[in-house]
């Protein structure tokens, strides 16, 4: 029970992810089948829908934008600061910071991760491992959106008695960029809202907020 409490965030968000995916599967299949039945075309069973390009494209287009949001946030907050926001470092800390502040090489402690202690390429790689892995997840899910999105788009083209698009044509197609950019804009809006609103508003007890009584211009202070 203590173990579960100590991992409450990861467990809860994984459960929410699974619940939302299950809901998306049922709603997405019903929507797909409504349209197919109207057109006199074959409807899909649940397994067929879960392995379809339509489901894969819908999932991947949201995943890529979420990974992009957090990747950009992680990387930009190294260099950019925001006065008054708990999402920002203190104003004089912009940049990669010193080895001492980052506890790498000779400044590592006994409990530091091994690659932070070792120095050389391993410490350089480990120093950027979060950004690197998040970037790979973003690129992987964006590629998955591209591949599945083209297959789903071409299936719809064929239903409408239109010619399917090749890879190059789909890379320039409005469908690909509309799917991509409509998700990006909402992610950037959410980050901008959180960065700015957290200057003036509080959520007592949340580490994403400053303490309730903290002045508006305090920067880099979390509750």
């Amino acid at each position, binding site marked *: 029970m203590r173990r579960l409490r100590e991992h409450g965030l990861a467990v809860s968000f994984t459960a929410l992810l699974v619940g939302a995916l299950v809901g998306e599967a049922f709603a997405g299949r019903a929507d797909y089948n409504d349209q197919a039945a109207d*057109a*006199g075309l074959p409807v*899909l069973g649940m397994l067929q829908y879960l392995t379809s390009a339509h489901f894969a494209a819908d999932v991947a287009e949201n995943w890529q934008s979420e990974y992009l949001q957090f990747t950009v946030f992680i990387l930009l907050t190294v260099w950019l600061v925001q006065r008054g926001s708990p999402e920002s470092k203190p104003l004089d800390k912009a940049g990669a910071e010193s080895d001492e502040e980052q506890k790498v090489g000779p400044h590592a402690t006994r409990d530091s991760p091994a690659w932070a202690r070792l120095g050389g390429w391993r410490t350089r790689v480990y120093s950027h491992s979060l950004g690197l892995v998040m970037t790979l997840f973003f690129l992987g899910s964006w590629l998955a959106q591209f591949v599945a999105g083209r297959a*789903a788009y*071409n299936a719809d083209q*064929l239903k*409408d008695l239109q010619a399917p698009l090749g890879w190059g044509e789909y890379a320039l197609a409005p469908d690909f960029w509309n799917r991509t950019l409509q998700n990006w804009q909402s992610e950037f809006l959410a980050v901008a809202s959180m960065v700015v609103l957290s200057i003036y508003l509080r959520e007592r007890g949340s580490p994403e907020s400053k303490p309730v009584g903290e002045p508006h211009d305090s920067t880099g202070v979390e509750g």
Partner: protein
Amino acid sequence: MEEGAAGDSARRFVTAQVQDAASACALLAPKTLQEVEADGHCAAVLGDGAPAAVPRLESVEVYGTNAIARFDADTVFLARFRDGWRVTAAHCRPDGPQRPYQCEIQAG
């Protein structure tokens, strides 16, 4: 694999149309068959529009449960139903980029 099955159904349809229009009707998707029969008996309608010779299959593309089969003198659209690939539209010709094909046989 699906390309092969869709291509087989398309080839059987265009061959049957030339040789035995009644069996071509059995390869139409339900809504397409309904539309064809609105113009008369299916075998007669398909027989009237049949090409003089069986066209040669050039390519097949499959996306999900939909396919396009291109012949040298015809284009056929198909969908995969529980009992296999059925023709949703035939005797189709392109009508410009990003425009639907113009099809003599189609649903709706």
